[in-house]
């Protein structure tokens, strides 16, 4: 017989390295036509970081994403970056590219102030223009400013900058300190169905609410959540490297090490919670790693809700769940404490 269950789990997760310096640097070049090129030493590993970094540069310069070309991942060409690790790219590299873009922009603003006959502090870059904040009709196109800066004034608009997240070292005895500059939070609720004759679990639905700070690109935030949930389902139910008694892996292949397929993935409802981080670029934090963190406990709590057994060692394979159900049934018959079918 199949039993439905629902479980909840929440989590917190930090952005960047634990105290240790993990700087990023970036170079932004504004071309004579108002388009821009970003040089970053991070590496695109699939999460969409280059797209996000391009959007941050575009936002700072008041241009659109397609106006920014991104060059990455070459130690001879691109400036130092700690790399694609620790959910740090949007927050740390994002701040570096924002600062680099701001430096290039400051040249553009100085030139535009001369061209418009106003003070720099009166100006902003928006919608491909530099304009007076309080009187947007007084404006000049970014392309004209960039061309004027380079050709007429000999000041090519170029910026370079670095960023390292602010932390405070931890006391070695008590661990007290400020190990990270920012944390994100998330909750996932899962619906499952457990077959008490086979122990098999089907994840029917996942509801995921994730704080990422400002979502620079909501589609990419969703992509991280969806992929993280897949990895969390694998952790909860099927994935495990097994060893023989001599210490050799038994299943080093995708035939016997089972990651979720398209048939294992449930529909997912995502809510992006946009808190505003005071340190992150435009309020952004990060989203890469934390997406999988609440999935396994939410599923395990749903399994308990469905059949009353609590599996305490992952993965919760069908065999393990079935044994726990049988054990619980035997305890109930003997009149022992019900409810705990611990493995």
């Amino acid at each position, binding site marked *: 017989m199949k039993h439905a269950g629902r479980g909840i789990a929440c989590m917190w997760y930090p952005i960047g390295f634990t105290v240790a310096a993990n700087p990023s640097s970036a170079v932004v070049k504004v071309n004579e036509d108002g388009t821009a090129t970003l040089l970053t030493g991070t590496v695109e590993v699939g999460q969409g970081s280059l797209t996000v970094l391009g959007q941050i540069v575009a936002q700072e310069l008041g241009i659109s994403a397609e106006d920014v070309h991104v060059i990455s991942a070459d130690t001879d060409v691109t400036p130092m970056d700690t790399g694609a690790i620790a959910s740090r790219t949007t927050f740390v590299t994002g701040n570096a590219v924002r600062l680099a873009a701001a430096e290039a922009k400051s040249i553009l603003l100085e030139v535009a102030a001369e061209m418009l006959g106003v003070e720099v502090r009166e100006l902003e870059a928006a919608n491909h223009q530099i304009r007076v904040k309080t009187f947007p009709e007084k404006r000049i196109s970014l392309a004209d400013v960039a061309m004027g800066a380079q050709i007429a004034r000999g000041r090519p608009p170029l910026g370079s900058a670095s960023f390292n997240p602010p932390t405070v070292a931890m006391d070695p005895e008590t661990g007290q300190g400020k190990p990270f500059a920012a944390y994100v939070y998330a909750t996932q609720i899962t619906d499952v169905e457990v077959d008490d004759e086979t122990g098999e679990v089907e994840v029917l639905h996942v509801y995921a609410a994730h704080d990422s700070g400002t979502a620079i690109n909501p589609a990419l935030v969703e992509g991280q959540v*969806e*992929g993280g949930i897949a990895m969390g389902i694998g952790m909860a139910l099927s994935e495990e490297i097994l060893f023989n008694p001599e210490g050799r892996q038994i299943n080093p292949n995708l035939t016997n090490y089972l990651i979720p397929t398209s048939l294992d993935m449930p529909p997912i409802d995502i809510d992006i919670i946009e808190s505003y981080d005071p340190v992150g670029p435009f309020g952004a934090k990060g989203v890469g790693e934390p997406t999988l963190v609440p999935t396994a406990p939410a599923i395990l709590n749903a399994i308990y809700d469905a059949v009353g057994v609590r599996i305490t060692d992952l993965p919760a394979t069908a065999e393990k769940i079935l044994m726990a159900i049988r054990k619980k049934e035997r305890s109930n018959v003997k009149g022992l404490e019900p409810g705990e079918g611990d493995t």
Partner: protein
Amino acid sequence: MHQVEMMVNGQVRRAEVPAETTLLSVLRETWGLTGSKLGCDVGDCGACTVLVDGLSVNACLLLAVQVDGQEVLTIEGMGGFDYLHPIQAAFERLSSIQCGFCAPGIVISAKALIDKNPHPTEQEIREALAGNLCRCTGYTKIIEGIAEACRAPAITDGISVTESGHV
């Protein structure tokens, strides 16, 4: 050594290969068609999926000599940079793909599906992708993208839009 000849993406290709050479190896190494990927070499992951005479196959499991005289479609025979198959266009709009390594195989599997069944249900899409592993996306936006592509006029009405606007 064995002579093989096949029609790959509408073009006749020939090679002389040892008997044990896989289709994937001849595609990638002899002809430079590196779009099909080697992810496991034993038919588990589907990153090497191509069509042979219209059937989707794992190119890592077939020997080149077994495909001699056949017609092969690889990802390079789908859209190019300026013209995309509706599946590719939908994946692009939705950012369906992340690291991209599974994408060539998934695009081919999706094409095989909608060639046979232009109006698949969500479950039919999931079943068609079951041999293509993806570790990044949870398949969510890939499945949405295929469903969206099936609603495109190019699929529903069989109309192709090319540069000159001709079908």
